[in-house]
């Protein structure tokens, strides 16, 4: 993890990525309190959810676009361990793992993919639009960068109503090239809003390598343009993510303004299920798989207690199979409900005042 750059410094300095550790199970001292058993369970839940989603897409049970985060689990898991339950969260459209980590029920998430009435968004949203307002998970957003200005508004509301609450806005590095990112970053910094802009940099905007789309591919370096501090972490290493998140969130929570945390990660699967992956070598993917965040943790844990690993694995498998069964068994939304929830009332009166 790189050190933060204090805001008082004229120049925001972003340090290079930490060296990749040869040994997969090295936990930095800063996160010695990290419970790797919890981490294993969390990452496996995300991995298995994604794998099953992919299988059921192939089987025709899941439709539309399906973007899997296999390989990127350390980011949503590590970051979510640091966020507080009262913090606000918005994500891009590769957000199943974020939703699971936020506490959304795996069965209701799977049901959303199946388009069922019991889905987290009532079958209206699908893969790209998981939300749970009770848990302040304000949704996955499918317009690249579109949610970043929404985050400024949520942060404004938090700043006014509950100081100490922060907004975590998750986006891909591809979104840093769209105007919305820059409008949001400028507004957030100008108004000193409590937002952590968390970039999951997986190296590709769909099939275009970052270097071919961005003059400055390191998103963290762009923070300097808005006077924000930035952290870069190894997004394949959950401990590095946790350590970086702790520092970045502490800064944002202090009320001094927004920050960027950039996690370099890699997706092992295509951009979506329709991706033939012509733009990268299989060898590159295989090489990155040697840094699989899940396998790194499980390798370490097997040396400690292999039976417990198996136990957790079985528990997660049972949960995810139950999630699929729940999705399968749930009813589709009634067509008679089609026009529900478009507006609260056609005459614009509030539901309360009209009662």
């Amino acid at each position, binding site marked *: 993890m790189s050190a933060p750059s204090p805001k008082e410094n004229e120049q925001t300095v972003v340090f290079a990525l930490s060296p990749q550790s040869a040994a997969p199970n090295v936990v930095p001292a800063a996160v010695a309190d990290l419970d790797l058993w919890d981490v294993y369970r969390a990452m496996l839940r995300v991995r298995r959810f994604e794998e099953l989603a992919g299988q059921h897409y192939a089987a025709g049970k899941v439709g539309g676009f399906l973007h899997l985060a296999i390989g990127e689990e350390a980011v949503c898991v590590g970051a979510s361990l640091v966020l507080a339950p009262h913090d606000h969260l918005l994500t891009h459209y590769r957000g199943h793992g974020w939703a699971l980590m936020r506490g959304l029920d795996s069965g209701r998430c799977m049901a959303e993919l199946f388009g069922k009435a019991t889905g987290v968004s009532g079958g209206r949203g699908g893969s790209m639009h998981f939300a749970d307002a009770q848990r302040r998970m304000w949704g996955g957003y499918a317009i690249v960068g579109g949610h*970043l200005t929404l985050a400024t508004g949520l942060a404004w509301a938090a700043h006014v109503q509950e100081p100490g609450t922060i907004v975590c806005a998750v986006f891909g590095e591809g979104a840093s090239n769209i105007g919305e990112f820059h*409008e949001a970053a400028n507004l957030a910094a100008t108004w000193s809003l409590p937002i952590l802009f968390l970039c999951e940099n997986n190296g590709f905007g769909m099939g275009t390598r970052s270097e071919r789309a961005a003059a400055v591919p390191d998103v963290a370096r762009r923070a300097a343009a808005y006077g924000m501090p930035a952290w870069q972490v190894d997004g394949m290493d959950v401990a590095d993510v946790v350590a970086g998140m702790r520092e970045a969130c502490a800064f944002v929570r202090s009320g001094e303004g927004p920050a960027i945390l950039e996690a370099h990660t890699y997706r092992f699967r295509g951009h979506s299920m329709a991706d033939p992956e012509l733009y990268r070598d299989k060898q590159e993917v295989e090489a990155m798989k040697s840094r699989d965040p899940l396998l790194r943790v499980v390798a370490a844990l097997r040396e400690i207690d292999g039976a417990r690993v198996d136990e957790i694995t079985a528990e997660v498998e049972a949960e995810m199979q139950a999630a699929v069964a729940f999705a399968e068994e749930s009813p589709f939304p009634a067509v008679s409900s089609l026009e529900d929830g478009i507006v609260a009332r056609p*005459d614009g009166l509030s539901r309360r005042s009209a009662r």
Partner: protein
Amino acid sequence: MAAVAAPAAARTTTVRDAIRDTLRSEMQRDSRVVLLGEDIGAYGGSYAVTRGLVDEFGPDRVRDTPIAESAIVGAAVGAAMGGLRPVAELMTTNFALVAIDQIVNHAAKLRHMFGDQFGAPVVIRMVNGWGQLAATHSQSFDAWFAHVPGLHVVAPSSPADAAGLLRNAMRGEDPVIFIEHSRQYSQKGAAPADADHLVPFGSARIVRPGRDVTLVAYSYCVPMAEAAAERLASSHGIDAEVLDLRSLRPLDRDALVASVRRTHRVVCVEESWRSFGVGAEVSATLQELAFDELDAPVARVAAREVPMPYSKPLEAACLPAIDDIVGAALGQIS
């Protein structure tokens, strides 16, 4: 239902003051109400609508923004999700185009797309108008917004309706596109003193009852239609009804049908381009719901289909005029 609205306890004011007074009274009533927009604070608003409010409520509740409309609308929507009641001002409707993604893809869709868990109670005020401002600064996109499920789209023509529609918008639970017109701000009229005066959406207003032809209008075209009705009466002995739609989404279809049952002839007036516009929707609605009541095809008076030119005579030739409305009404009856 349409109603002849004439509030009892009233005072004379302007559209500008009615909007400002409503913003003020709602800000006093509800501490969650915040304003944001370009130059709405220290500058006082480019059309002086918000003048003085920053002194009264402070810069935290009356927030000047960067010139970044997508951020303005996005921040307003996000703030609404987070529990505030934002009213965003877009300096002109033209600039809504750079925020159209936030309006259409987020403000309008959040409630439905996330299974009715939350909405975006945000008011987006914007100003139509013209005045030798040329092609990019003389537009209105009322029909674009009215096309989108999830939005309310309203456009007052009087101080009373400006107050009542805006208050309804600010107390509601969904996004409202509130369309003002640069030429109507100084227009005077009676406005109710009632601090709870509401005009529910989807209720058109009969501005002038009549028997021979209905002139359907909204926003700045309403006073034009009234002037045309007066000329039709004085010069041609024709008794025209003027119906102010007030709300484009939802559209008061019942009021349209009721009026055509009385008059059997309809002219729809709008300042936007004619094709695929409000007049087209009104016309289609009436042929669907009241085909047998129509004694003539619905006539449309609208802007000529060119990007607005700068030169004054060319600009005037683009815009609907009172003569055009009178001519269209006469064409219905002859």
